[in-house]
């Protein structure tokens, strides 16, 4: 297998875009990535595009061809990947594997989604298509609901009073909003940067014990990256960022995973696969962009990826270990909570943030001496899990 590197990255501002279609959002992100890749359009051999619920939000499916045609790549193979909130991370991983295998030299990857404009009821129903469509949805299980179930089980299993856990969960929201408020691409740029724990605890209850500020927002946005074989990348750009390892795993419904929903076993498997491929351990990772769709989700993720013992992730947040100046900065770009979560675009937007950090271009909230970063993207109730390790070191 060949080494693979990222040439360029792009993303739209995340937020509300009633005036931009799914195609407009992807094209805007794509051309930002294209401009810094030092290639011509004809060099791109395939498009890997992620979108989750275009049919429900925009009445639009079969999207990949429209995306390719829009950006001037008429006729190339264009494939849409759907893995719920991990859609564009799945696309990125498949793109990287195709280049590594030698099938393509240069490909484009990305995603777009419009959930904010769709409104809360349609958006919530669209997101709920990622729970079991027969046995879970019938009870009206929502995504905040999934992580609310996990939060109560976490408190019970690790014998933490629920109110104490809620305070530590709130600290995730405070941290990620603080970082989102200084990220110009974030949905909450310039907003909610000085939240207090009490603000999170006292905001509107969505699905007990999760309040509105425990949840990431509904977001419109697009993201893109261009990747190439490492030997080619080194001739094209000054600072190629190498794709050192990727991992992916799957699961059935929550009721099949039982008490493992707080251990996120598919994430453990995906992370281990990525570490093995990269020949690294969690100690080699300088910072992570994690799928904090809800505050408790970030805590569970840091444990399952191997950074903290099970039941200890909440204390890492409380003790500042996951803050920008801690041992493992988590979500320095604001995460899904502060930056926003345009589902199908989220995974590649995490790659965007990691690449910018590693190039020293993330001026607003830099991670000191960052050489290796990792992304973590969760689709559904652990049904699709992808981890990607990126580094400025080739091997």
């Amino acid at each position, binding site marked *: 297998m060949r080494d693979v590197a990222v040439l360029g990255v792009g993303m739209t501002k995340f937020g509300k875009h009633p005036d931009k279609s799914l195609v407009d959002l992807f094209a805007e992100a794509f051309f930002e990535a294209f401009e810094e890749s030092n290639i011509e359009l004809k060099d791109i051999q395939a498009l890997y595009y992620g979108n989750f619920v275009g049919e429900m939000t925009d009445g639009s499916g079969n999207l990949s061809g429209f995306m390719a045609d829009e950006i001037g790549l008429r006729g190339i193979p264009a494939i849409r990947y759907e893995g719920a909130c991990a859609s564009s991370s799945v696309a990125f991983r498949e793109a990287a594997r195709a280049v590594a295998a030698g099938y393509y030299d240069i490909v484009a990857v990305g995603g777009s989604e419009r959930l904010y404009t769709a409104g809360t009821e349609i958006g919530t*129903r669209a997101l709920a*298509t990622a729970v*079991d469509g*027969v046995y879970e949805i019938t009870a009206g299980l929502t995504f905040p609901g999934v992580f609310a179930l996990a939060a109560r089980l976490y408190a019970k299993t690790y014998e933490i009073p629920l109110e104490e856990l809620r305070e530590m969960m709130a600290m995730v929201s405070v941290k990620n909003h603080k970082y989102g408020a200084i990220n110009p691409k974030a949905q909450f740029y310039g907003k909610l940067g000085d939240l207090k724990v009490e603000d999170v605890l006292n905001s509107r209850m969505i*699905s007990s014990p*999760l309040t509105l500020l425990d949840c990431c927002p509904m977001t419109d946005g697009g993201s893109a990256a261009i990747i190439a074989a490492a030997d080619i990348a080194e001739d094209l750009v000054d600072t190629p960022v190498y794709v050192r390892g990727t991992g992916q795993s799957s699961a059935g419904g929550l009721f099949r995973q039982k008490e493992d929903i707080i251990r996120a076993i598919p994430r453990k498997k995906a992370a281990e696969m990525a570490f093995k491929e990269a020949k690294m351990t969690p100690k080699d990772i300088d910072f992570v962009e994690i799928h904090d769709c809800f505050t408790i989700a970030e805590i569970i993720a840091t444990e399952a990826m191997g950074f903290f013992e099970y039941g200890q992730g909440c204390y890492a947040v409380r003790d500042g270990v996951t803050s920008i100046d801690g041992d493992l900065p988590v979500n320095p770009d604001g995460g899904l909570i502060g930056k926003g979560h345009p589902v199908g675009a989220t995974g590649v937007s995490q790659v965007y943030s990691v690449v910018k950090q590693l190039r020293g271009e993330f001026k607003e909230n830099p991670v000191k001496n960052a050489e290796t970063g990792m992304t973590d993207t969760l689709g559904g109730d652990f049904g699709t899990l992808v981890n990607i390790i990126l580094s400025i070191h080739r091997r």
Partner: protein
Amino acid sequence: MRFVDFFNALLEGKVIGQKCLDCGSYTCPPKATCDNCASRNLEAVELSGKGVIRTFTTTYVAPSGYTEEAPYTVAMVELDEGPWIVGRIDLPNEEIERLGQDLIGARVSVYGKEFPTEPFYPDKKRRVVPMFKVEGLR
């Protein structure tokens, strides 16, 4: 076993699942393979319909198609035979808020309740929800 068989039985007050003739474990709701060992050597059986609440959440913001029913409390119950199922606790909201985390571990019996279907639900005639009746409330 088809998914509608599970819900039809629930409406008759029965929880049906499968017993694996290879490893002896139970799978519920039904599945093409044993949830423990992936064997297809399964036999349809009626389960006790009893279990304990392992976790729950009261949903205040419901998706399109479910808004009329909110707030409602979704729970995961571990059946006495081992499988977990998703359903709703049939207590009033105020009672659930009062009990809080103490509801975890409470024993329940399972029955089915019919609700109107919605455009995206696989059963176009009706939607059956497993309901959890809490036993021995103080």
